[in-house]
């Protein structure tokens, strides 16, 4: 599901493209509604700051810090989260 394509902006990047240490703000989430809902329920709603902490030793998954909680998410799923670096 794409949420309001007009909100998307050229400066937005998929979260899996943000390097460790990078801080960004969530803009929109794409994908199956039940999965998008789950990700949002864990606090990743549009407007929330996300810090990429590190990649796992084999390069996937990625560790995030959102609302002071550390979460790990596969890069394939992070690709569905569009963010704007700050």
């Amino acid at each position, binding site marked *: *599901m794409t*949420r*309001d394509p007009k909100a998307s902006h050229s400066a937005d990047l998929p979260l899996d493209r943000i390097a460790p240490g990078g801080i960004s703000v969530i803009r929109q*989430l794409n994908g*199956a*509604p*039940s*999965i*998008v*809902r*789950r*990700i*949002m*329920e*864990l*606090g990743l*709603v*549009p407007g*929330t700051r996300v810090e990429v*902490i*590190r990649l*796992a*030793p*084999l*390069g*996937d*998954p990625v*560790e995030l810090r959102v*609302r*002071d*909680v*550390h*979460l*790990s*998410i*596969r890069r394939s*799923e992070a690709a569905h989260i569009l963010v704007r670096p700050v």
Partner: protein
Amino acid sequence: MSAPSESPSRRIAILGNPNAGKSTLFNRLTGLRQKVANYPGVTVEKKTGVCELPSGSRVELLDLPGSYSLRPGSPDEVIVRDVLLGLKPDTPPPDLVVIVVDATHLDRNLYLALQVIEVGRPVLLALNMMDAAAALGIRIDERALETQLGVPVVGISAARGDGIGNLRRLMEREIEPSNAHFRKLPPHLEKAVHKLEGHLPRHPGLPERGRDDFAMALLLDDGEDDVLARSASPETHDTVRELRRELARTVPDWQTRDVQGRYGTIDGIVARALLAPGDRRDIVRDRIDRVLTHRVLGPAIFILLMGAIFQSVFAWARPVMDVIAVGVSSFSQLVAGVLPEGPLRSLLVDGVIAGVGATISFLPQIAILFFFLSALEDTGYMARAAFIMDRMMGGIGLSGRAFVPLLSSFACAIPGIMATRTIDNRRDRLTTIMVAPFMSCSARLPVYALLIGAFVPNRWIGFITLPGLTLFSMYILGILAAVVVAFVLKRTALKGGKPLYLMELPPYRIPSWHSIFLTVRDRCLLFLQKAGTVILAVSVVLWFLASYPRGGPQEVEMRASIARAQKAGNAAQAETLQKQLAGVALSHSFAGQAGRLIEPAIAPLGFDWRIGIALITSFAAREVMVSTMATVFNLGDAHQGFHSLPETLRTARDPATGALCYTPLTGISLMVFFVLACQCMSTVAVVRRETNSWRWPIFMVLMMNALAWVTSLAVFQGGRMLGLG
């Protein structure tokens, strides 16, 4: 104080996010007065305990599984939702709900808390980890939070015991059902929910205010939620479909709109209640993680830790298991000495005591494995282990959490399968359970040792001996089978939408001995209660098959010869005859007949009827194969016969043709069969328990044995074609 026998009348449920300290609080409030069972029909654990309140009255405390949302994403969360909405007939809804909220992560924890408050039951909010919050400089205005939420709030530290007295006093108070409402829905959605509410049946357990939650859940259900679907009528489902179509047109993001709205509400609440946000950077955590998830050090430490655990399950359990074996055998002798020889003695000694002995001999391995696993889980390390391993396990379609159960299965599949509970996704978990028994467990070692000793010459091949290489190949074969079967299962029977992997990496904590002890105790008890009964029953059946029918003409004649030899004082001859008698009795028994019956089916694999008997009896435990072969070859039982058994097998000749019964190729084929076949009743029993159905254990037995048969056939026939026979 009320009489201890009086059953508690009030029920209080504890719930909260994973890692909010829910179980620590539960342990603190109940002490040792708790028990674990399963919710009927699912493998989610139901932990209940008795809690004494200041007045001396007792209440029943229910520890609900950790949950992020009442809109469930896992079987655990379905239970929480169902208990709270009164949808579970076996678990009456609680009279009071204690929500445990982690004060150091207020906003994320409030998401669930607001949902729970809206259901409209009496609610109490325990603001946990106040000590950790204070250390980080976080200050929360509890009274402001109380005003904002409309429910009593009490600050506690479950780990240190602060504020528990206040909490107990509040738990005793009569608390009004909460009536706060936080959800703001777009008008179209609100209307749809309201309309659906009118169609819902009245549930006695469902509070009036919980009805719109139920309606919303029905709207959002994507077909995974059986309980919900069953509790609504076909007409209601029609209405749901109609409303969904309408919503898709009017509110494109209706499925997620309320989540964003709720976080908006939370931000408002936090702005009023959070006096100081504190310095949130956890420096200790950063330092530890930099080492434990380091590109090189991380995997190295992981492998080292796992190796240490594997080694301790493998090695430390051995002496305890030996002590148990000695205890069981001396108890058998004691019983045998008291009872006269006959069917009853045989049933007790060879059936019941042997079965009980088989069951308890697993306890050391289970206890050791779960000691380490629960300690590592409580520190927060297991989440890192899954983080490190996810990529590798993902290659065969499993989650990072599958690694530890599979590794443990090299010691024994029983604790390994029990350890799959940490895998959230049902399909991932079932796949892991199905492939765990392919890992060569310690019970296969005696079989490998016997066959390698009999048929594999001790020669050096480069830096490894041929026996060593053979043994190594057997382990590799099991791993390959697991990879292939997991790959196939994930694409066929257990196919499904790729589950979302979104896992919290909790802060590091020092584990509590008390909680580790409780976990180990619960694992052992659950195993004894559930798997133990099946193992005992199968032992008795196997005993019967190997002991009856008895008293054939040949047996009677041999008994007479033994009596004559004893009378004549020829002890040596009597003993030899006694051993022969055991062999004759076994080959005439039902098991012996079955061995002959299946001979045509196993002959193409190079097995004769004697191996057939061993395949049947080894269902009690794989190592029983060794003692069965000893008995069949008239060597007496395993203790005396073991040393000469490899030689006997190597040189056994068919009396009719004079040809060797078994060639080295037979030995290899038989080892391959033991790698792949499901010959362990305890594994079947534990799979039955962990999947709560007979479907999966039956499938497992058929699948593994078919694979074993085909592979051994290929090995034996292929080997013969190459002239290795």
